[in-house]
């Protein structure tokens, strides 16, 4: 059997069971070696580029925290100018570096129409600095800067709908994906690479350390996020949401409590007593979203 070359090498320092390397392996192995990757400061960068080791088997540049998209813009234009227009340019960013501090650079890159494929690896908080709240943190989750307490239910703001915002830039392709459905993720990466122009893929990556669950459940939780409607898998060409394609519809959508009770970051919703009003609100919001997207079969 021909050995498949891994483009994201073993020996990296990610936590056992980390979702990010699963996503990066899947994405890079689909994109192939004719790729230049850009990564911003975050878990992925820190675990994979510690001098003198690098886990990357494709050319990679890391510059700062908020500028994966603008560094990628420079890379894309330079490669094109130097006659390498067929090389894939994939910009990776964590949710911190994409939803918040990197939002401006991302919007600029999308608006200018660069042929860059931006992949946001979303673990729903600033994990690298120790689990602080981000605009990607879901309602009701406990983080170190939005902790659950006597007067707090944890995060009290809804998750920023970043993929929809990107699609609203009228870019040729936007998609959401997760590591539990690798064929779906690979297909979306392939579509993005084959589509000329800026593309955005939002990938949910559970984090055993930050979400507080046992390391073997990473993929299981990503699947549960989809099965409960917490994370909807879709793709869209352009900005007309009437044309949205839900790539995983649900028959018998599971109740959100099945997802919430598996993670330490939602533990306060169940102990010492059940915060039914918060859980009900989360369920209502999901029901409304699934209705709007047409997720339920």
């Amino acid at each position, binding site marked *: 059997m021909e050995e498949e070359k891994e483009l994201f090498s073993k020996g990296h320092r990610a936590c056992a069971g980390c979702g990010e390397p699963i996503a990066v392996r899947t994405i890079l192995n689909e994109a192939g*070696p*004719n*790729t*230049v990757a*850009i990564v911003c400061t975050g878990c992925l*960068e*820190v675990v994979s*580029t*510690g*001098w*003198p080791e*690098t886990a*990357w*088997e*494709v*050319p*990679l*540049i*890391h*510059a*700062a925290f*908020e*500028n994966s*998209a*603008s*560094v*990628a*813009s*420079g*890379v*894309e*234009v*330079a*490669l*094109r*100018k*130097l006659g*390498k227009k067929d*090389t894939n340019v994939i910009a990776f960013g964590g949710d911190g570096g994409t939803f918040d501090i990197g939002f*401006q*650079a991302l*919007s*600029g890159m999308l*608006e*200018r129409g660069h042929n860059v494929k931006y992949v946001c690896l979303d673990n729903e908080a600033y994990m690298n600095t120790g689990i602080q709240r981000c605009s990607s943190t879901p309602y009701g989750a406990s983080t170190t800067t939005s902790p659950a307490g006597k007067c707090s239910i944890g995060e009290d703001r809804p998750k920023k709908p970043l993929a929809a915002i990107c699609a609203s830039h009228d870019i040729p392709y936007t998609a959401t994906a997760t590591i539990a459905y690798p064929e779906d993720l690979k297909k979306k990466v392939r579509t993005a690479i084959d589509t000329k122009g800026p593309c955005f893929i939002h990938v949910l990556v559970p984090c055993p350390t930050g979400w507080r669950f046992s390391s073997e459940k990473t993929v299981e939780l990503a699947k549960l996020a989809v099965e409960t409607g917490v994370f909807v898998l879709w793709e869209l060409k352009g900005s007309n949401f009437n044309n949205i394609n839900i790539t995983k519809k649900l028959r018998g959508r599971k109740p959100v409590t099945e997802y919430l009770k598996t993670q330490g970051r939602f533990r306060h919703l169940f102990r010492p007593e059940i915060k039914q009003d918060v859980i009900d609100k989360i369920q209502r919001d999901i029901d409304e979203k699934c209705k709007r997207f047409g997720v339920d079969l």
Partner: protein
Amino acid sequence: MAKITIRGNMATALGAKLCRPDVVPAYPITPSTLFPEKISEYIADGEMDAEMIRVESEHSAMSACIGASACGARVCTASASQGIALMSEMMFIAAGMRLPIVMAVGNRALSAPINIWCDHQDTISQRDTGWLQFYAEKNQEGVDLMIIAFKVCEDKRVLLPATVGIDAFVLTHTIEAVDVPDQKLVDEFLPKYKPELYLDPSKPMTFGSFGTPEFYQEFKYAQTKAIEKASEVIDEVFAEFKEKFGREYKKITPYKCEDADVIILTMGSMSGTARAAVNKMREEGKKVGCCKLTVYRPFPGKEIVDLTKNARVIAVLDRDISPGFGGALYGEVAAQFINESKHPLITNYIIGLGGRDVLIEDFEEIYDKSIDAVKKGRVEKPVEWIHLNKEVL
């Protein structure tokens, strides 16, 4: 060689055009806006084979410069003031990653209060970034220093980025006559950029590693050694430029300093005014000279000492202020002399901030104050502000 009349901004844009950059990411800011405007005009009319990236902020401009330069493209940009401050983080990174990016800076004051006029605070405040820094006295230097900067920066012994400063409005928007270097000669002087390390799938490598305490200090040491080596490379390139184009540049250019009691040290456009003031004072019998600093980083400490050590007093003019200390240039000049067994008195004058005009009578005041210190044998007030409007204070 054609002779034309152009503004300082156009001069740096013209200098950049002659260097045939591949990628120009740029964002508008007064007073350097005319640079990206001119570059986009050149491209739109087919006079320049470059790609512009109309980025959404200066931070993204420098980020895109870094991405493009890492791929092996020749890159330049322009900014000023708040833009320089905003991209500060990325300037440190560009130097740390050893990328030869050249940036034309329309030297302008920093907020607050907001001010669009001539001041050196923007580039001076970035003197620790590891960038080389050139300062132009006139528009001709704006053209020439862009070409010189690329050649120095891309030298394998250097591989560091550089700023070329042209004073806001005094140079950027003022029309002066300029000799346009011949494109063919520039192509011979500055061949195509061929880095050894760059992003390419055929030879994958990682730029921007995570440097732990075991290694960080050594990386910084190597970077520092490179900028120190640049001092030598700058002299070589200056000599080559003189041979090719007939104009001579020095890191520090003296004027009537040989027998001077007072030597006035300046940077930027006020150096021209300094020479006019020196001429006037010499007619009055005053033994005064001036020195123009063209290269600020790497700091030409040895050259400054050699040129000024026999004066009775050095008057260092700073068009910037490090509040709580004094002028930046003053502190660095003083440090050069501190270990010399004997040295002149050193005085500091804060002048021309936020576009305040620098006049011949200011130099006369500086001479009088400096000679006064010589008579007293000591400097009572090391840092003084010139042309301060006491009525409004």
